[in-house]
């Protein structure tokens, strides 16, 4: 059976003038992106104030995150300087102490060992205490010899504690001390603050969504007549929604940029005093800023929240506006 080839139907009117779907979408989005930026620039003060509110809201959790991050880094550097002091028994002589120091150097989990003999301890005490002449009246040196042990900084505080406990049981050791309780407290506080920052970030993210959503809601109300006309001439919801979503995008992006400016300003403001403070503790610690990923997170977070706020509001309100 011969099958007649069907003549292709002529294109619907105007279809030859339409761009391919992807080009049409890209062109449409690019056009709206620029159009919405133009719309926002018509009312610069209002736009700036909204962006400022978003910026401050984003800067707060980002700034607190930086604070926690810096304290964490600082505490790790303190952790590296953790040291255990092994006070040797009075009957342990210099040679035995030296031999013990040598043994400890080879022991796993120990980074460095420094032996301070009784004479050296006395000399140091004399130099730093200011009781030089008073010490002269002592007939014997009351200070014990000390082996200062620097644990491997890669170890956790709990492992270091176990190490010191085992060192305390050595026959030559009279007493072993490790002053890390304050560090543990700091860790606990940091953990609370870290979780608090997460909670605050979630709440403030919701606030950004509400701020953008409310701004877009007013925008929708102001453009109600335009939306009705658009629906009447056959605009699909996606087309009508697009400018509002891009408005949310611009609010989020500008809010993110303002947040970065605020954080940078805060970092500049505290950098010098922090450097002076760390210098007083013989440290070269410098306040760390946001990483590249952090910068992207603030900007991306701002954009995502702006977009989400706009989407949430437009979805709720667009369906309520119908031509009557």
């Amino acid at each position: 059976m011969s099958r007649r080839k069907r003549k292709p139907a002529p294109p619907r009117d105007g279809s030859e003038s339409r761009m391919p779907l992807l080009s049409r979408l890209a062109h449409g989005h690019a056009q709206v992106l620029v159009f919405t930026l133009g719309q926002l620039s018509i009312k610069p003060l209002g736009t700036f104030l909204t962006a400022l509110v978003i910026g401050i809201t984003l800067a707060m959790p980002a700034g607190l995150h930086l604070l926690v991050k810096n304290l964490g880094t600082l505490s790790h550097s303190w952790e590296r300087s953790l040291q255990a002091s092994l006070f040797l028994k009075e009957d342990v002589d210099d040679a035995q102490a030296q031999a013990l120091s040598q043994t400890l150097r080879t022991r796993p989990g120990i980074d460095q060992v420094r032996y301070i003999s009784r004479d050296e301890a006395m000399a140091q005490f004399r130099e730093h205490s200011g009781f030089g002449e008073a010490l002269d009246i002592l007939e014997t040196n009351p200070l014990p010899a000390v082996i200062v042990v620097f644990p491997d900084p890669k170890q956790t505080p709990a492992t270091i504690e176990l190490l010191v406990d085992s060192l305390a049981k050595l026959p030559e050791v009279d007493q072993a001390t490790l002053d890390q309780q304050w560090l543990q407290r700091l860790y606990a506080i940091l953990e609370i603050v870290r979780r608090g920052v997460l909670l605050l970030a979630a709440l403030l993210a919701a606030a950004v969504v509400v701020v953008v959503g409310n701004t877009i809601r007013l925008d929708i109300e102001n453009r109600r007549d335009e939306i009705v006309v658009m629906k009447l001439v056959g605009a699909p919801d996606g087309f009508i929604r697009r400018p509002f979503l891009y408005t949310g995008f611009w609010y989020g992006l500008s809010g993110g940029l303002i947040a970065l400016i605020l954080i940078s300003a805060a970092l500049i403001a505290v950098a010098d005093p922090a450097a002076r403070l760390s210098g007083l503790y013989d440290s070269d610690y410098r306040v760390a800023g946001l990483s590249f990923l952090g910068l992207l997170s603030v900007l991306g977070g701002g954009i995502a929240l702006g977009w989400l706020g706009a989407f949430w509001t437009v979805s709720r309100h667009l369906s309520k506006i119908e031509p009557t």
Partner: protein
Amino acid sequence: MDPIIEFKDVSHRYQNGQDVLSRLSFSLAHGEMAFLTGASGAGKSTLLKAIAAMLRPSSGQVIVGGADLATIRGGRIATHRQRIGIIFQNFNLLYDRTVFDNVGLPLVIRGWRHQDIARRVRAALDAVELLGKERVYPLTLSGGEQQRVGIARAIVAKPDLLLADEPTGNLDPEMAQDIMGIFRRFNEVGVSVLVATHAIDLIRQLPYRLIHLEQGRLSEQGPVSHGDLHVTP
């Protein structure tokens, strides 16, 4: 030929209990032009809204271009409206946009290239004798010119069907004659046109079918010139 509009036993009751359409059945053929007349509250606007899928009748079937409007939802309503051109008494223009932007809007929605939009907008403005007013804002135009901008917007995408709801209601008689002339010219090139109007004097001598509504019921159909109708504005 299948009708472009077909009403089958359509009734509509508003939420306040008012019946506006009552078991209405009529059709409009492809390429036909007709006038819809009737007193205020007779159901003319409701009928046009039903065709434009702006409301769903309480009962009956409205079929436009072969599609039963009771079955279309969401994005298909927008597609349906893209196939018809709607003209309103109050123009429904965007006053913060130029004439060009207003007329080109249906084509922007369809994703046309700018140069094609420009070509089509000029052609549409030429058809309503507004060429040269592209950069003007609607508020600087007279009522008749604004209505012609509305018509240009309705015809720019070359729809199969034009609906006009009291298009001459806000215009002086001379302007109104011009507007009716424009509709006739479109009908002559094959566009189906349905015009709801009070202006019985304006259409009395025109050789088109008249669909007269009284309290939501079809009271009379026939050529205007043969009808003996009394329409209370």
